[in-house]
């Protein structure tokens, strides 16, 4: 009995050794072995395996339009690339970051556990990045965000900056300064109040706005905050009304932003105060949630124009059956193409089609991207992570009309 079992076991072992030897010797027959010398490791992609690029975007909840739009941009970029990088299929999937730090942490943990991932497109929100980036960076990935704008993330002296992080979105140092400039020089406003919602994005953006606005000669009457889940804004608005500002700047998200727009008009002392948000509130969902109260609400947002962009929009409409639903589709398109170009530059291809991607080599290739012609302008990256070359515009919402109308800078307004 035990003898027969022994024979069976030894037969199985011998068979597996023979098979294993067959499997390992085949590639060596065709090319010299690749040895990985990269400091943080390599990704090896077999001849018939796909190159895995993941996303970490917000694709559900109140801010779903933000991440879905970016994902759509990447899908168009993949279609334009013929679905292939270096002859390999592209595997594109990902996780929902929910536009919160908790969601970013959960999604980042899942992605970091998958060693087949080469690069991550994301995150959507700066708060997600703050929680997810330590994990993604430690896993050796390259991350490129289409919509993170918080200055911290690309400030090498800041603990929120991690190697391997890049973005095609603008830095809020630029957006906050543009908003302050618009308010002071174009609207001729001298008294403003700011509200943030505790998110990294809104906190930093209001800080930049306040600094620039005061530098220009304006007065900040109140710098306060709201809970992102609050619905009743009456007490914060009553507090702000005591300073009689001419403008309230609240670069926050939905739904709190929509509640502020709606309730500011019924607060005594704020009936005629101008309201302004930033790119987080540039979304058709603002129309849906704030209703007619949206009339006159302003948001700052990057301007993307040009013949190539128009062609891209035509493809977007053809593929998804709608006009772009947010602002960061072109940034995501460019982000994917920068990653693709960097993979092509950094990868080592064996004669049988096996691709080796050194992870640090890929980061170096990303950081040395120069004069990349994208939809959002001519992009040059650095080790800090900023790739963008933005122009910030200000748009105004009208009830029942989307997208909002561009009102500043005047030289970019297209005359119909």
């Amino acid at each position, binding site marked *: 009995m035990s003898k027969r079992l022994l024979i069976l076991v030894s037969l199985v072992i011998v068979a597996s050794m023979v098979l294993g030897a067959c499997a390992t010797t085949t590639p060596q027959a065709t090319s010299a072995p690749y040895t990985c010398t990269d400091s943080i490791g390599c990704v090896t992609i077999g001849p018939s395996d796909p190159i895995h690029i993941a996303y970490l975007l917000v694709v559900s909840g109140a801010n779903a339009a933000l991440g879905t739009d970016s994902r759509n941009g990447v899908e168009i970029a993949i279609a334009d690339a013929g679905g292939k990088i270096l002859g390999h299929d592209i595997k594109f999937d990902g996780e929902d970051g929910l536009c919160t730090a908790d969601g970013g942490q959960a999604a980042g943990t899942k992605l970091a556990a998958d060693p087949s991932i080469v690069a991550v497109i994301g995150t959507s929100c700066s708060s997600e990045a703050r929680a997810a980036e330590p994990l993604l960076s430690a896993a050796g990935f390259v991350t490129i965000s289409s919509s993170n704008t918080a200055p911290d993330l690309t400030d090498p002296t800041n603990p929120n900056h991690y190697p391997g992080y890049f973005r095609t979105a603008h830095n809020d140092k630029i957006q906050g300064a543009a908003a302050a400039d618009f308010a002071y020089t174009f609207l001729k406003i001298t008294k403003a109040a700011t509200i943030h919602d505790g998110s990294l994005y809104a906190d930093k953006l209001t800080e930049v706005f306040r600094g620039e606005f005061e530098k220009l000669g304006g007065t900040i009457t109140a710098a*306060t905050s709201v809970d992102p889940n609050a619905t*009743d804004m009456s*007490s914060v608005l009553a*507090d702000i009304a005591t300073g009689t500002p001419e403008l309230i700047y609240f670069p926050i998200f939905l739904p709190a932003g929509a509640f502020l727009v709606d309730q500011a008009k*019924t607060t005594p002392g704020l009936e005629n105060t101008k309201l302004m948000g930033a790119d987080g509130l540039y979304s058709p969902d603002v129309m849906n949630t*704030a*209703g007619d109260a949206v009339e006159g609400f302003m948001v700052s947002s990057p301007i993307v124009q040009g013949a190539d962009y128009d062609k891209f929009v035509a493809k977007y409409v053809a593929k998804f059956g709608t006009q772009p639903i947010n602002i960061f589709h072109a940034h995501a398109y460019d982000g994917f193409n920068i990653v693709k170009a960097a993979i092509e530059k950094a990868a080592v291809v064996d004669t049988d089609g096996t691709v080796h991607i050194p992870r640090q080599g890929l980061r170096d290739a990303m950081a040395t991207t120069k004069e990349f012609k994208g939809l959002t302008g001519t992009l040059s990256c650095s080790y800090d992570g900023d790739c963008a070359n933005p122009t910030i515009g200000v748009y105004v919402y009208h009830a029942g009309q989307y997208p909002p109308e561009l009102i500043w800078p005047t030289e970019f307004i297209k005359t119909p």
Partner: protein
Amino acid sequence: MLRTLRQRITLTDIFIWVIGLSIAGIVIWGTISTLQQGRYSGSSWLDLTIKGLALGGVYALIAMGYTMVYGILKMINFAHSEVFMSGPFTAVFVALGFSKSGFLDRQPVISLIIITIVSAAVSTLIAVLLERIAYRPLRSAPRLVPLITAIGASFFLQYVFRGLYGSGSYGYPAIKIFEQSVTFAGIQVHKTQIAVIIGAIVMMVVLYGIVQWTKIGKAMRAVSEDKEAAELMGINVDRIIVFTFAMGGASAGIGGILYTLLFPVVNFYMGFFPGIKAFTAAVLGGIGNVPGAFLGSIILGLLESVGPNLFLTGLGIPSPSQLKDAIAFVVLVLILIFRPTGILGERISQDKA
């Protein structure tokens, strides 16, 4: 005399009283220093008060569901916040349809009535189903079991509605007749808030009337007093319980429409905070007591609206509005320290004794 008193007061009592008195002291100090600063104008206080009353009215309609169910079954129906959400989250599609077809602008009153009926009907249906499926089989189980079931049912309903209508938010269309404001003795008051306050008061009177002056209301009170005795007297207890849930559901559905007049955004998690607040209000007023729930809700609504600016601005606390929930719950703690049965709770226990 003094010795018996000393025996009765324990160290815990003293500790709790010190906490209570120090909170009360901070509140009074904050109020005085805010009023001394004079930052807010009279009209701003009045505006906050009216908003608080409107909010309190909505809380009252939700709190009815908690307090009536508690009165009869002695259980806390934590899924009531989802009963509240289901109505307006469904009726939003009716409202959007009316808005698109132009009916809402042409016949605002009729459309508002239809929207309210739809909302009340859905909430009632959910409440009755909840009772039938989740609570009735557990009626003789230990008291903790239905409580845990209620929490489970709450999550279940939330994600059912997420599955039905998606995770995004929908906005209620603006109703033109409520848009202007009227001037009331020199103060501008918005018609929406007036409509909400009037709606809440009418609903409360109707509900109180049903409980107090109808035959079925008498039966409800009898079941609440003693279930077995009521059954022996020929009252169909199951039917009374279903009716109680239906009444709570309808009240929550109507409250939901009033809520969306104030905050015109609905989503699948919208029930959570109003539900918790209404529960707090019910406890504040004395749970199981209908006028108590009304009083507790009005107090809570006012505290939330006026409280942060009144108590905290004077203490120099930045962005006091974020602490409004803290204020609401601190007041709850204070009430429970000084009056553990709630504001009107004692009367009920005397009635029962």
